[in-house]
């Protein structure tokens, strides 16, 4: 039995047993996301777990969020070296979207981010740190060296988990490294044990570009203006720690792009060869008919036409489109601030502002989910737009 089959069997069991009571909890959004897990199967399993996990996390449904992100991360952490879907997606006759979705590095990193936040909420700082470290490793897959492991948010959170765990040396190491990327960031004071995290905007989009739709390009989410965040009561402006769109778009060329490029060249060559051969055959047959006064549909001209048609069929059968499925209920950016736990009230409202930190024409403000963990430390989390609002 191959790992992928085991995984899908496990998913069926999970969907069948664990999710059933959750769906009955009248949480329509989560139920619909979980429905997609069943209907779209293994191919979109990770994507749908990411979507459902985000909705559950927003609704403070910790158990469901943990289950969804664990399921997604188990697949992300697995190694797919001899995978049937991967083999298909590499071949000429299937598009890249045939493969089982595992996400691009920024999406995998963000799955680790939410898993880490769930750990922080339970005061499991060591596993939170492991999650943020794993997120950084995912970011190391960037093609351009300067963009490798530059996910400042994860580095900050790695340091934050160490800070809460009392590992001051490890925290300092992480934050020292962070300062090289965000020189203006002020490192949290020793007595800061509350973290306010706010997400703004809409998820980065993936589009297929190029003549054969073989190039994957990223575009910032559409129709949102909020780019800064402040705490409504105190007016404290949050530090814009991470631009997720930038993380997505600075990765550079992917190894699979060369495969897709080869497929496009094959497609073009065969289309050209097919057209040339059918044109030559038709032209020659016309000339032959003109000279001899007979129809020339068989023999050498017929064979040429046939070869031309086969080449054209090859070219139209070759599928080289890039995979544009993306985690659509992510946010565009993440903002942070830290303060002593005693200064955070359970009723915390965040106000979203434009890029110049002034009020939006259509104001947006959200209430943060404030969690006091078993050790008394606080994590307040909010996002400008509901996770159920896809695209």
């Amino acid at each position: 039995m191959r790992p992928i089959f085991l995984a899908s069997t496990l998913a069926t069991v999970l969907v069948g047993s664990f999710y059933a009571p959750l769906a009955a909890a009248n949480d329509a959004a989560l139920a619909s996301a979980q429905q997609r897990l069943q209907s779209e199967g293994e191919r979109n399993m990770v994507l749908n777990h990411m979507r459902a996990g985000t909705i559950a996390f927003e609704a403070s449904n910790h158990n469901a969020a943990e289950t969804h992100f664990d399921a997604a991360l188990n697949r992300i952490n697995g190694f797919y070296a001899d995978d049937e879907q991967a083999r298909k997606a590499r071949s000429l006759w299937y598009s890249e979207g045939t493969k089982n979705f595992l996400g691009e590095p920024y999406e995998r990193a963000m799955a680790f981010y939410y898993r880490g936040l769930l750990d922080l909420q339970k005061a499991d700082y060591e596993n939170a740190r492991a999650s943020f470290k794993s997120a950084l490793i995912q970011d190391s897959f960037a093609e351009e060296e300067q963009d490798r492991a530059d996910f400042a948010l994860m580095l900050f959170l790695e340091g934050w988990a160490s800070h809460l765990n009392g590992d001051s040396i490890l925290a300092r190491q992480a934050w020292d490294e962070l300062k090289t990327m965000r020189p203006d960031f002020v490192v949290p004071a020793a007595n800061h044990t509350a973290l306010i995290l706010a997400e703004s905007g809409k998820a980065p989009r993936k589009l297929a570009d190029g003549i054969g739709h073989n190039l994957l390009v990223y575009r910032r989410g559409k129709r949102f203006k909020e780019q800064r965040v402040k705490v409504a009561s105190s007016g404290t402006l949050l530090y814009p720690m991470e631009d997720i769109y930038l993380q997505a778009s600075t990765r550079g060329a992917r190894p699979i792009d060369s495969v897709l490029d080869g497929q496009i060249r094959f497609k073009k060559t065969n289309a050209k060869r097919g057209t040339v051969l059918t044109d030559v055959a038709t032209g020659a047959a016309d000339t032959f008919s003109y000279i001899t006064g007979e129809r020339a549909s068989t023999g050498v001209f017929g064979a040429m036409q046939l070869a031309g048609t086969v080449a054209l069929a090859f070219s139209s059968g070759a599928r080289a489109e890039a995979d544009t499925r993306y985690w659509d209920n992510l946010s565009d950016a993440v903002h942070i601030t830290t303060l002593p736990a005693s200064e955070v009230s359970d009723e915390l409202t965040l106000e979203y502002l434009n890029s110049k930190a002034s009020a939006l024409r259509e104001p947006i403000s959200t209430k943060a989910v404030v969690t006091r963990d078993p050790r008394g430390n606080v994590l307040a989390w909010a996002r400008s737009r509901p996770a159920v609002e896809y695209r």
Partner: protein
Amino acid sequence: MKILTLITTPLAILAMAGCASAPYNPANNTAGRATVYEDVRSSGRVQGIGIESQDIASMTDKMMRDMLANPILAGRSPSPRIIVDSEYFRNESSSRINKNLITDRLRIDLNRAANGRMVFVGRHFSDMVAKERDLKRSGMVDGGTIRSTAAQAGGDFRLGGRIASLDALDPNSGTQSRWQQITFEMVDLELGTIVWSGIYEMKKSAQNDIIYR
């Protein structure tokens, strides 16, 4: 005569055939029945580069045997009181793990094998013990049959340790590797000296298909 020879000769050849044959394996040397159970002490069918069951089984067994061969820990009279739990066993690695998997297995293996040479303090059960002691002393329940003591047992030695990792990655080949080092140390709870140390390390690497890099 000729007929007899014709019959007996092939029979004789058949009878002799066994003596002249090459070495053979008389065992029914075939694979066992397929099952979903796997040996926790061997690599499974689903593998990653993190800490897996065989690593935990292997490292706790190694540490347990090493501790029992150490006269400071296992050769004292009276037997020392030891605390083995995950309280001071840190995970600084990039692998998410439930540390109790390691410390529980170590404590239980040690306790089963020590046979009184070491005494284990269940500090993680101290709440449970405190509640029962309160009930006994308040007269809600009787004193039990064993004995009464002035206080719960204090420890002589306690386990500390750390899981650390170093990750490396080649974005071109999609190969990811993780070196993990797990250290175990037994600390004298009066003096603070480390009386025993053990280390276990492993390095694993794996490669993803190009389509997933």
